[in-house]
């Protein structure tokens, strides 16, 4: 503890925490950039990372929606699905405007064009849903979005002829690279780049005046409105924005980058709940936190499929090996649930929150003001006033 204090003060005198924080960030990014070049790493790890990046995008954008704007949506996965499915259907069937008698054949639409269309579709639906949700708060909003995403899932599953039902719908591949290793390399960088871009976009929004307004709305919608914040506009805006981000990410991920086809099971509430859990564990109200939470949780869940426990002191199991393998199976998720619940209860801002705040100078400032307040003698006033 003492040592830590000394270290802390050293940092504060030295480069300062914020700078150090940026440094750490840069190092992390560099690590991820270097990673695929590590020959010892198999493509499988890369694949795990790729899906990790994808879910990082999902839960950090959800963190903006739920954590910062306080819009507690369970429809996030559905929006992702809309993006992917729209892209896939467009690329397969093209568009036909019966009334105008004009039709755009699938061959004229490039994979990327399809992705863009998917993104727009997700945004459009986000607009409608956001508008519908204006009247609903908290639990009602959650319930409505659950209903929405279930409806979407059931439709995708049932309209077998159009969506391929549970066989899933395969999107037009974004990259055509024969060599598996090279392909995986490119996909890795593509997804990582996407994550960086999305995080940057989310970060910019969160720290712009808009972000401020969103937080104000989260705290108290009426008050915010009374202070001149156009709640309607920003509420809808945040829905459209996040829907487009996840729609885009989804369309890309399923264009044979992370996966070769999207299946309705991906849209089950279970999947959504995983995203929420990641965000909660990482810290719902910090984008980086949520992203990191998602990435780490996914990695751990993956790594925990098979836990090899090496026995100390040359002990051996009955068949003579010095290690035995534990396959936690569902216990992983059970454990995950426990972690989530306890995080919520005892570290509401997520397990990474302390680290993140430590790096932001905010809490230095806080400490100072706290000390000042203690010196301040309106303690009595506070107690008295709080009795009202």
């Amino acid at each position: 503890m003492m040592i830590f204090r000394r270290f802390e003060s050293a940092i504060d005198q030295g480069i300062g925490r914020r700078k150090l924080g940026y440094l750490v960030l840069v190092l992390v990014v560099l690590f991820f950039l270097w990673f695929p070049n590590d020959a010892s790493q198999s493509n499988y790890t890369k694949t795990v990372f790729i899906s990790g990046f994808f879910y990082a995008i999902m839960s950090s954008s959800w963190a903006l929606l739920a954590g910062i704007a306080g819009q507690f949506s369970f429809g996030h996965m559905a929006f992702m699905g809309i993006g992917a499915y729209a892209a896939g259907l467009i690329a397969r069937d093209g568009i036909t405007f019966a009334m105008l008698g004009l039709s755009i054949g699938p061959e004229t639409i490039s994979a990327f064009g399809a992705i863009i269309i998917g993104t727009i579709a997700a945004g459009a639906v986000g607009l409608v849903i956001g508008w519908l949700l204006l009247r609903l708060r908290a639990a009602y909003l959650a319930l409505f979005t659950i209903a929405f995403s279930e409806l979407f899932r059931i439709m995708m599953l049932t309209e077998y002829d159009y969506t391929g039902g549970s066989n899933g719908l395969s999107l037009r591949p974004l990259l055509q690279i024969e060599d598996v290793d090279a392909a995986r390399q490119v996909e890795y960088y593509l997804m990582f780049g996407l994550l960086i871009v999305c995080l940057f976009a989310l970060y910019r929004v969160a720290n712009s005046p808009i972000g401020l307004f969103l937080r104000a709305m989260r705290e108290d919608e009426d008050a915010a409105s009374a202070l001149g914040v156009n709640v309607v506009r920003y509420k809808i805006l945040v829905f459209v924005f996040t829907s487009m981000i996840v729609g885009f990410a989804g369309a890309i991920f399923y264009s044979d980058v992370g996966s070769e086809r999207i299946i309705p099971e991906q849209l089950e509430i279970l999947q959504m709940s995983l995203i929420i859990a990641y965000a909660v564990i990482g810290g719902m109200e910090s984008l980086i936190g949520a992203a990191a939470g998602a990435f780490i949780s996914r990695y751990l869940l993956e790594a925990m499929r098979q836990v090899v426990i090496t026995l100390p002191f040359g002990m051996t199991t009955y068949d003579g090996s010095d290690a035995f393998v534990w396959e936690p199976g569902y216990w992983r998720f059970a454990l995950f649930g426990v972690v989530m619940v306890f995080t919520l209860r005892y570290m509401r801002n997520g397990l990474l929150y302390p680290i993140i705040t430590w790096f932001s100078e905010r809490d230095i400032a806080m400490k100072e003001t706290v000390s000042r307040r203690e010196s301040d003698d309106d303690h009595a006033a506070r107690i008295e006033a709080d009795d009202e």
Partner: protein
Amino acid sequence: MVIEDTLFILWLMVAGPLWAAVGLFVLPGINHGRAEADQFSPTTLKIAGLIGGFALGPIGVGLFFFEPALIRRTSLTLGVVLTVFISSQVLVRVIDPNFPSALWLLLAGPLWAALAAYFIPRHYRDLEADDQNALTAAALGGFAIGPLIFGLMWKTTPKINRDWMITLGALGAWQIYALFAIQNPTNPCVALPFAATYLTQQTANGVVIGCIYSLMAVGLTLIYSVQGVVSFAHGQLYMVGGYFSFYFLEHASYHLSELTGSDISVNPIWGIPVAAFIVFIMGALFERVFLKPMHEGLIERVSEYAILITFGFGFFLEYTTLAVAGPFPQKTDRFIQIRRFTLDRYHFNDEFFFGPIHIIGDRAFAMVVGIVLIFALLYFLQRSWTGRALRATSQDRQAAAVTGINPTNMNTLSFAMGSMLAAMSGAALIPIFNWVPWVGAEMVGRSYVIVVLGGLGSVPGALAGGIIVGIVEALGAGCHPDPSRGAAYKEAFALVIFALVLLLKPTGLFGREQH
């Protein structure tokens, strides 16, 4: 249903106009000078007579003669019913079977609903009329009767009371029904002579399963009414309830057989109290540890916290069960050894008949269990001190606290009881549906629909909501024009209603104002 051509034409061309004429010319005359009739303008009387006569013939005329007070509302309603009925009957004949009902259901209906929902309430406000429920009524009406709703609500902005809602709702339902009929005339919902039996059968199915559903929903609504919290662990509690019952019965039967040496299988009814007891404890503990701090102001954004924490709890329960019990479907013995109750076919004449109606024995039993438990709960809430205390707390925490009720205990109690009810319905259903760890998901979705429909926090609402959902699902699956999709969309029907209620009347049908 499609009434027979000759009958229809006979009425449309001859009887209707005849009595309409009577209503039009005679009624105002004889009603003239009678106090209760003079409150209406002559034109109103004329139109009322016209419609009444056309719709109900002599009955209508008689009605308006003996009960002039009814003239306005009755004639309005009749008018609407007529328009829809005739139009749909004509449609059935004119339009070819593969007329896309989507056209109305997905385009025209919602369009008019949206328009009405947008303009009418404003109009009400401009006229300083009481605009309570105007929105709902407008939307319903717009969907049901399209532009006519403007004619109905624009000129004379009537006070929207329950009959209005029910009438319009019924009309909407009728609209869908008629469209289904058009889509697929061989649809058993419309094709005589089956229709009568079939609809009764489906309604019965709906009511039976509905009562079972509501038992679970009641728990949800109880928790909400006291704590203002929607439990997202409800489905999983329902699921573990089933499992507790299952394992208890298995062991009990085994050991009893051991003792007595004869092969005994314990009736699943005994599983219910066991499951109830265990889950009650679980619920109480969870509430103490994780929900209590909410009410001590240790947590901001309470509702979100509640959602997440219960959600995580459910997550944990589901996977723990999966790890312990495995994915293999389980089921207990039946409650009663009667496979089904059957009401035999009754012939009116050689082509018209009614029945048979079947109800599966165990379901009937489970329904009874459900109803008994719900009424027991109601009795408990009304009569016992604790029950009253619970209600008081749900009314007004502070006031309750002042009168010496300990709100903290009430919270714990409410959550524990709510969870217990979920577990009980689980234990009551495991003899009927086979059990897997993810069985809660579909069920809980349904009970959200139910509680919102009935109004979060209202126990009778939950019962009604359950029955409505049951019927909607049964009729939806049963009457969907495309049999191959009807079943697959079964849940979807309830979900659609759910979404609509949330948007139009978030307080539900019986609910208090939302917290």
